[in-house]
């Protein structure tokens, strides 16, 4: 890929900003490039990165999913409390949670694909519904984690120790799951006909249908995939935290959507890459976790998140506007 083409990519700019930010934190605090800080960052990147893969697919198809934290919380809470101690292997917990997530995703997918309602409003409604079921009917409260998942939470890939301070952090196996999930997402989007269909529907639904893509089926797949992944991620989160906290994922949807868009995934569909979504998520996680190292009080963190969303999406929106304008000029000059 030539340099000129590279500079036209959003991913390129996000990567540069990411590196610049890392260097800034390093210069200000001297604590950035320490093994425990890097491991901590990778650890907090795990869950948002997995969510971003599912969300990105929905966004590329021209929709949006605001319900995945609710789906993740409900399926996680159900399997960890209702199936507590039933199995000695973590796998059944993951499978049941994924099945529950799949069913809830299918509800979203069916309503969005059949009635063509705006996905945001449908998934907001569904989100409220599932959270209500969890808090109202299952009566969500903190709960000790079942032993099979607890043991999984203790498994680690490596440990990063800071030689100066003596602090150390563990990188849980879940980071490996996240990497696998990212690769699966990349494979589906880039190497399969289904992936082509997702891009085609997001670009122009009517054209995609004429070209022979199954619009209804593709939409159903996307929401089912996102739902099943949410179930999986919910259980991951609980085992990483080593406790069942049903409410601490609620509200993550907005940060994940913003991270995807920062990474160049178009909110109107048809455009985006797995690399971009991962870079966008990394940038959001980095900023949220490094404010303390920069000496900024934590009460400011929400303001910074807001500013990043506004500036990041503003820049790409203005670029898009200019690109459209130059396109018009080019056409009229011919």
């Amino acid at each position, binding site marked *: 890929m030539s340099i000129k083409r590279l500079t036209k990519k959003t991913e390129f700019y996000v990567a540069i900003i990411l590196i610049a930010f890392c260097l800034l934190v390093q210069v200000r605090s001297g604590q950035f490039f320490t093994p425990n800080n890097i491991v901590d960052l990778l650890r907090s990147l795990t869950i948002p990165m997995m969510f971003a893969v599912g969300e990105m697919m929905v966004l590329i198809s021209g929709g*949006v999913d605001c319900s995945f934290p609710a789906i993740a919380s409900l399926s996680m809470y159900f399997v960890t409390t209702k199936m507590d101690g039933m199995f000695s292997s973590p796998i059944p917990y993951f499978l049941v949670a994924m099945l529950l997530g799949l069913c809830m995703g299918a509800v979203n997918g069916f*309503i969005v694909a059949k*009635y063509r*309602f*705006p996905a*945001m*409003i*449908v998934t*907001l*409604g*569904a*989100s*409220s*519904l*599932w*959270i*209500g*079921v969890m*808090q*109202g*009917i299952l*009566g969500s409260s903190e709960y000790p984690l079942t032993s099979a998942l607890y043991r999984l939470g203790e498994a680690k890939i490596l440990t990063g120790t800071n030689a100066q301070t003596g602090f150390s952090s563990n990188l849980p196996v879940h980071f490996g799951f996240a990497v696998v999930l990212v690769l699966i997402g990349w494979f589906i989007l880039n190497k399969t006909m289904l992936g082509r269909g997702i891009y085609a529907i997001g670009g122009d639904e009517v054209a995609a249908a004429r070209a022979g893509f199954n619009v209804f089926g593709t939409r159903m797949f996307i929401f089912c995939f996102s739902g099943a992944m949410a179930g999986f991620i919910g259980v991951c989160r609980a085992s990483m935290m080593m406790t069942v906290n049903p409410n601490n994922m609620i509200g993550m949807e*907005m940060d994940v*959507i*913003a991270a995807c*868009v920062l990474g160049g995934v178009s*909110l*109107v569909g048809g455009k985006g890459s797995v690399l971009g979504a991962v870079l966008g998520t990394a940038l959001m996680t980095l900023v949220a976790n490094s404010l303390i190292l920069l000496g900024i009080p934590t*009460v*400011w*963190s*929400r*303001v*910074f*998140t*807001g*500013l990043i*969303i*506004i500036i990041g*999406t*503003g820049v790409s*929106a*203005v670029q*898009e*506007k200019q690109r459209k304008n130059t396109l018009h000029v080019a056409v009229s000059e011919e």
Partner: protein
Amino acid sequence: MMSKDNSAKKPALSFLDNSSARMIALFVLVFVVCSLLKGGKFLNADNFLAMFRQFPEYGLLAIGIGMALIIGGIDLSAVYLANLSSIVAGLFLHHFYQGTGDGGTGLVLLSFVVALIVGAAGGILNGVLISGLGIPAMLATLGTQSLYWGLGVVLTGGSTLSGFPKVLGTMLNKKFGLFPVTLFIFLIAALITGIIVQRTKHGREMKMYGTNNRATLYAGLNNFKIVVTTHMIGGILAALAGIIMWGRYSSAKADTGSTYTMQAILIAVLGGVSPNGGSGSVTGIVLAVLIIQMISSVLNMYTFIPTACRQIVWGGLLLVVMILNFYLDQKKKNRH
């Protein structure tokens, strides 16, 4: 839509085609069902007073968010803008008020003006980000949601602002018989925005923009002005809601009423605002506010139902109403 000459052969239930008639029918139905379920407990003065006290704050937010939906957008920031307005107004009071709880009527009124200015400014910022920079409404207001919420946290240091002149509480909790003063604030604001949306050129332009904003651009309308004005009105309505919440609790906090966003979207869609933009009325939204309040009050009377179950009702109702509207509209199309 329906011409006069075929009205003679209308089927019996065809008045349901009209979304306002549909709303009135639903309103009467819910009222009757609530009365039958709870009888004297529902149909009594105390309950009505309680209901009139509860809905103005989220009703105002619903009208503001409904207006954003009419122009084909959304406003996720309204609740936090409401809180930010009352926080800034509260800090203004803290700064200038010297007494120990007495007096200060003039200052309190002045602080309301401060809140309204903050609301209008926040709304204008939303509009500029959406129309000026071209950020999709959902992301722009998601960003400002975080921003307004964050500013509220920074200004209060994450805690609750209190210690205001007593007149703040007495002024906003005053009632005339069955009717609290906040109900009048709601009705006046609803009347004014209703006239703007349903009777003025701006209202027509809003709906045209919501249907097709490229067409309005080519038709020579000022798209920027339409979006900014609409969000500015939404911001002012949010500030009014903020003032009411501030008066109700005599304190201001960055995250009061965080479940109202979802509820306000539900109310707007229930009230006949098209989730795709382009149509909707304030009359419908006001009726939907009343319907939601009646359901909420009756659910409250069943003490064995946990409050969190209301979220099931709101979410489920939103989906069911959208699907029902879809089929009713389809029927109407087929008949033509």
